[in-house]
């Protein structure tokens, strides 16, 4: 439970001269003494000793003010930490009751738990949402937010993660006993700049750079991408967004569109934090697609049985959904099963690896 200590009350008395106004608590010093007000009512004309006892009777309000009063906290940090405990939506008593059990918030794949520490301060714990119910003893525990750097480099299969907001965050770890500053630092290591951009968006100040302007800015080997936009529509960008920015591939909510006037037809996703411009991965992929899409379609003639046609579709789906590794060795009922794919290759490819023996450029 929360006790008001002398330090908090001393601070409150001192702050009353300039006035205190925080989450429903209002305290100020007037000509006829102190005024102490909460949503439950106001007491006026208080001597300092009386102010001290009312303060002591309202420990949650006082400790809540004390916690958020720190002035050297950057605005973005305060906004994020308050959002985690829904400070703008829930009353102080309501919140304090919840904080006693721990409040859970989610950020990408992170589960953040807020609890009460000493002196009204919050303590934060962060882990993968899949580990939320696992006992801490089963997790690798870290204290330094920078150690999260090791955790974000590889996924659970040991593969390098080139996109930090891909939904492939490693499990099995926890950062415990963080203060607000360290929590924000840890989140920034896992999902760089997402808190800042989220905050800018809430302020109505997010600077979105759409597809067109982003590609026009590119130079060097990426300069070629602008030739992909030929003023004949933006279907190709729909495909890019569907391929790369879907929630199954990236947890940012895509806010960039084709250009200022033209929205894409693909949904931007439901992520908590926005994506303000095509990222370097999308730019690099777009360069390759620009080259490939310069080709003209041709008609090829192959023979496939109906099942083989469906098998080709199944293989593409499985690879596109990243599920090839999950198909069991003997599951020959799946088109993308390795034996099935090898059989198809044995039957339909010639010695030079050409489908149906048909050459690519004829």
């Amino acid at each position, binding site marked *: 439970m929360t006790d008001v200590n002398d330090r908090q009350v001393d601070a409150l008395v001192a702050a009353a001269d300039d006035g205190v106004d925080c989450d429903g608590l209002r305290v100020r010093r007037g000509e006829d003494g102190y005024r102490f007000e909460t949503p439950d009512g106001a007491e006026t004309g208080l001597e300092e000793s009386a102010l001290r006892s009312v303060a002591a009777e309202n420990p949650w309000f006082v400790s809540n003010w004390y916690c958020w009063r720190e002035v050297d906290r*950057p605005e973005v940090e305060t906004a994020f930490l308050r959002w985690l405990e829904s400070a703008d939506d829930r009353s102080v008593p309501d919140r304090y009751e919840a904080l006693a059990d721990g409040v859970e918030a989610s950020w990408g794949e992170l589960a953040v738990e807020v609890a009460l520490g000493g002196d009204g301060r919050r303590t934060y714990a962060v882990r993968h949402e899949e580990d939320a119910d696992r006992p801490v003893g089963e997790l690798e525990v870290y204290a330094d937010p920078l150690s999260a750097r090791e955790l974000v480099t590889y996924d659970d299969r040991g593969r390098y993660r*080139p996109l930090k907001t891909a939904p492939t965050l490693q499990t099995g770890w926890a950062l415990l006993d963080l203060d607000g500053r360290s929590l924000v630092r840890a989140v*920034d290591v896992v999902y760089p*700049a997402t808190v*800042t*951009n989220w905050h800018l968006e809430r302020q109505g100040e997010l600077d979105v750079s759409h597809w067109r302007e982003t590609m026009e*800015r590119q130079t060097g080997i990426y300069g070629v991408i602008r030739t992909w936009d030929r003023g004949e529509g933006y279907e190709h960008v729909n495909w890019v967004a569907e391929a790369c920015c879907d929630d199954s591939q990236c947890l940012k909510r895509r806010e960039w569109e084709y250009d200022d006037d033209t929205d894409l037809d693909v949904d931007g996703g439901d992520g908590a934090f926005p994506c303000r411009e095509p990222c*370097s991965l999308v730019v*690099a992929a777009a360069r390759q697609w620009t080259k490939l899409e310069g080709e003209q379609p041709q008609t090829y003639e192959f023979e496939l049985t109906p099942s083989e046609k469906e098998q080709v579709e199944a293989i593409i789906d499985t690879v596109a959904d990243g599920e090839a590794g999950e198909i069991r060795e003997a599951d020959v009922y799946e088109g993308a099963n390795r034996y099935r794919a090898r059989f198809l290759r044995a039957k339909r490819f010639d010695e030079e690896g050409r489908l149906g023996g048909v050459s690519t450029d004829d």
Partner: protein
Amino acid sequence: MQSLVIVAHGSHLNPDASTPTYDHADTVREAGVFDEVRTAFWKEEPSFREALRTVQAEEVYVVPLFISEGYFTEQVIPRELRLDDWDEEAWDSDGTSATHATLEATDVGKTVHYCGPVGTHDAMSDVIVRRAETVTGDPDVGERSDSPNSRASRTESDGEVGLAVVGHGTERNENSAKAIEYHADRIADRDRFEEVRALFMDEDPEVDDVTDFFESDDIVVVPLFVADGYHTQEDIPEDMGLTDDYRTGWETPAEVDGHDVWYAGAVGTEALMAEVILERAAEAGADVGDAVETVRRRTRVAGTDAGTGAGAGTGD
């Protein structure tokens, strides 16, 4: 309040590309002279575009962890950081002499002291020498002294050691070759190594023929690259004949045409690089106190057990 942002290339494919950047950022952070030390990447996150907005200070020192002046330092970084008033004259450089320029990043309204790349700083010559010491495990490598401390005897030679500084050639970037030659000349002037040569990957004198350019029995080869990757861990070791297949690794030293070749891997992984970052920021006006000295001391070769982590190849 002063902040430091180290900007580097990074990679979509190679997880090791950003490791030196993080390591040097940690070293600078531990020195405690900046309120914040951040990193930003062209290919990783946070991107150059979004790094400055995560920094609190109004005054930011930006140091590019790049080897030479050129496309990245003159076009990409200033553009992506929105240093709108930047132009190539701002550094007033001959290709290796950029120090810094003070500009505004227009999206965040912060003052950015944009520094020249680490690779062309004079202190980089020291890092190359330090790298040679690390890979040979000999703090006196090349010194022609009769000092009993000299571990040159380990190389079964008379102590004469040649040093090759290796880079891309001009094909990719004219200033890249200039930076290699600049440091090779500076190190040669110190009269420490018997022979010092600048060698290149895609032009003469080529690193493939490394042994043709040296009389010395022992040759230390230091590639002027920021991070280990394809060039330093696959191309160069195979081209020099250290190994037929980089995946099987190579010996350090490896015997090539009767010479002992000590291959150091990317100079950028050397811990002393952190000092160059500090020097760059200090020249641009950052208050770094005695951090340069501290870092120099802390990263010194410990003598016998140094050189681990160098040259074993990537193995897998």
